[in-house]
């Protein structure tokens, strides 16, 4: 079901420099990702999940030290963020430009990465906003980011991330502010894109239940390391690390009182 090898990570390590200290955010990460494959990264706060996404996209802040290798056999060249990799950042508001309407921002991605004219880009922006289930997209294209609700902004960020028809979508807590109804629809949309457009997915989330219904494999991060990786159902039903087991037990469902 998954396609050719897209991405191969070997021994990846990242250190940040802050206030003279050096923070080890990732060490010794190995991962292969194929086209059409969907992987979830779960793990505790500060374990390096976002750092991993930023490292793949080449968007780590200046001054961070990277070791190990990230190869893109499926691309043949270094990936371009926006074009080859679509990214939904953890805080969607801060990745949107406050002085442009959301329509202009989504259209701009289509224009620069798909070479469309302005008119077609704008039409595609409306279509994309509709696809991420924003209500009355014709009105929302003209809204500025601060005029939208948190969940609506997050959906705009998703639309922007898929606008350039990327090969890899990195979604960092991309549905954390969206209600369960829309969440289920977005998950359906992502699944559809993965099979139709051969998109690969790196889904960073704290919601193990949401992940288990969407992805093929789950990787568990803890304290800068990958402590477990395996097929989603297996990780959920028979976790090999005690930390994963604890994560699953702590899941707050409706049945648990």
């Amino acid at each position, binding site marked *: 079901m998954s396609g050719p090898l897209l991405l191969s990570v070997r021994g990846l390590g990242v250190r940040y420099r802050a206030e003279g200290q050096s923070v080890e955010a990732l060490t010794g990460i190995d991962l292969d990702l194929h086209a059409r494959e969907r992987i979830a990264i779960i793990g505790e706060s500060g374990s390096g999940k976002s750092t991993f996404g930023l490292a793949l996209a080449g968007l780590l802040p*200046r001054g961070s030290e990277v070791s190990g290798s990230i190869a893109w056999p499926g691309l043949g060249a270094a990936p371009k963020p926006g074009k080859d990799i679509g990214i939904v950042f953890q805080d969607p508001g801060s990745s949107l430009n406050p002085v442009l309407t959301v329509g202009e921002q989504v259209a701009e991605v289509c224009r620069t990465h798909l070479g469309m004219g302005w008119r077609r880009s704008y039409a595609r922006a409306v279509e994309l906003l509709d696809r991420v289930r924003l209500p009355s997209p014709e009105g929302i294209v003209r809204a500025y980011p601060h005029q939208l609700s948190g969940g609506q902004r997050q959906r705009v960020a998703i639309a922007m991330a898929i606008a350039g028809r990327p090969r890899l979508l990195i979604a960092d807590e991309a549905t954390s502010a969206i209600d369960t109804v829309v969440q289920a629809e977005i998950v359906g949309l992502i699944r559809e894109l993965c099979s139709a457009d051969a998109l690969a997915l790196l889904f960073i989330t704290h919601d193990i239940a949401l992940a288990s219904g969407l992805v093929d494999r789950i990787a568990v991060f803890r304290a800068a390391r990958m402590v477990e990786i395996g097929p989603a159902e297996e990780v959920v039903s028979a976790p090999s690390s005690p930390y994963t087991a604890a994560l699953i037990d702590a899941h707050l469902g409706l049945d648990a009182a």
Partner: protein
Amino acid sequence: MSVLRFLRTPEGAVGGFLLAALAFVALSAPVLFPGDPLAIVGPAYLHPFANPAFPLGTDSLGRNVLAGVMHGARTSLVIGLAAAFAAIVVGSAVGTLAGLFGGVVDEVLMRITEAFQTVPAFLLALAFVSVVGPSMGTVVVAIALSAWTAPARVARAEVLSIRQRDYVAAARAVGMHPLAIAFREVLPNALPPVLSLASVIVASAILIEAALSFLGLGDPNVATWGTMISEGRNVLRSAAYLSIAPGIALMVTVLAIYFAGEGAVEAASARRIAS
């Protein structure tokens, strides 16, 4: 380092080098030519390179032209920087208050800004100095009087977008005083685009100062390029060097500031793309 990035742009390298040279000239003037540059030190109308003691010659009264040019650099830079500093401080404060408080405050402050803007900068400075009388201080005020309007408008536009941001709401939720919000939370974040105006303001301040002293409205007690050019003008045919030397100095200064400004903008945008 951002300084390195600045010097790596071609404009930054040229501008930075020229400005450093100018600063050196301005700082070393009182060391190389202690005493009053307006004092008579030799024969009149000595042409450049004729006497090694006066490399750029002497003027109609026998004053050392090189000493005048070097001390003039001091005057130009001091007045240019002081006027730009005053204009940016006043302008960004006015723009921040107008943008943040909106309503009547905005209306009143922006009407005042427009009123100042409609009068040509030079006429305003001219009028002010003629009324108050020429001195370094009044010249600085006269120039700042019209130069603050551009920073005010830029700051206001920036603040209008910043005030929608959640961190301003968060500062209100904390219970911060509106003026603390304006000057601690909002203004520092609105400053970068305002500061990018600095080079233009300094350059035009230096030109206005030169024009004022050309018309005899500069501080009479200090050497200025404008005064030197104006005095040289009367003998342009016989001793053109008297106007050319300070003229070249003026041109180089303005170009250096312009290049430095371009380099700074370039370096800042490079950083934004990288992050």
